[in-house]
C-alpha cells in the first residue's frame, strides 16, 4: 500500500500504542452491547434443534481431543 507524503503523519509510538489499546477497549465495549442485546432477545433453541453426540459434534467441528 502506498500513500502520498502529504497523507503521512508521525506520532510517538507510545501514543500509537495507546490509540490501539483504546480501539480494542471500544470494540470490546461494542461487543458487550451486542452480546447484551442478544442475550436478552434470545429465546433459546427450539425443541426440534438437531442433536449430536459428543463425538459427532467434535467431528463436525474438526476437534481432536
Amino acid at each position, binding site marked *: 500500500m502506498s500513500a502520498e507524503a502529504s497523507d503521512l503523519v508521525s506520532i510517538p509510538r507510545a501514543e500509537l500504542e495507546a490509540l490501539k489499546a483504546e*480501539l*480494542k477497549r471500544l*470494540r*470490546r465495549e*461494542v*461487543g*458487550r452491547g*451486542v*452480546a*447484551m442485546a*442478544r*442475550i*436478552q432477545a*434470545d429465546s*433459546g*433453541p*427450539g*425443541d*426440534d*434443534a*438437531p*442433536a*449430536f*453426540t*459428543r*463425538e*459427532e*459434534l*467434535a*467431528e*463436525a*467441528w*474438526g*476437534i481432536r481431543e
Partner: protein
Amino acid sequence: MPQPLRWTVQRTIFHLLDEPVPALADPFPSDDPLPGAYELHLPADDVTIWYTVTEHAALAADASSRTAAVAASVSRTTAASAACLQTRRIRSTAASGCSPKFLCHAAGAATDAELPYGGVDRLRLRHGLGGRCVRWLKRGGETVPRAMRR
C-alpha cells in the same frame, strides 16, 4: 470470520459444554450480572466470548436428565468480527448409561459475522449429518437456515 478464529471459538465452546463456567469466565455484565451470563476473554487469541448457560428440565425421555444451554456471542477485538452460536446439551445422568447428546442450532448473527454458509454445507456433506448442523450466520442473516427448516 477467519478460519483459525472459528476453530478457536468452536474448541472453546466445545469445552464450555463440559465445563460451562471455567475459572477465567466472569459474570456478565460485571456491574449487574444476568442469570447464567458470562464473559470469557482469551487474550492469546484476542477473542472475547459472551455466553449464557441455562439449565432446563428434561427434554429427553429420561426425566432425570438435564440440559445445559450455551448461547455465545463472539468478538475479536482486532478483526471486529463476531458471530453467534447456540448449543444445547442434554446431559445424561450417569445412571442412564447414555452418551451425552448435544442439541445445536445457530442463533442470529452478531455484528460483522462474516462466515459464509459454504463451510457448514461442507460439514453437512462430509459428515452426513442429515442436513442439520451448527451454522454460523452472516450479519443480518438471522432467519432460520434452509437446512434447518422443516
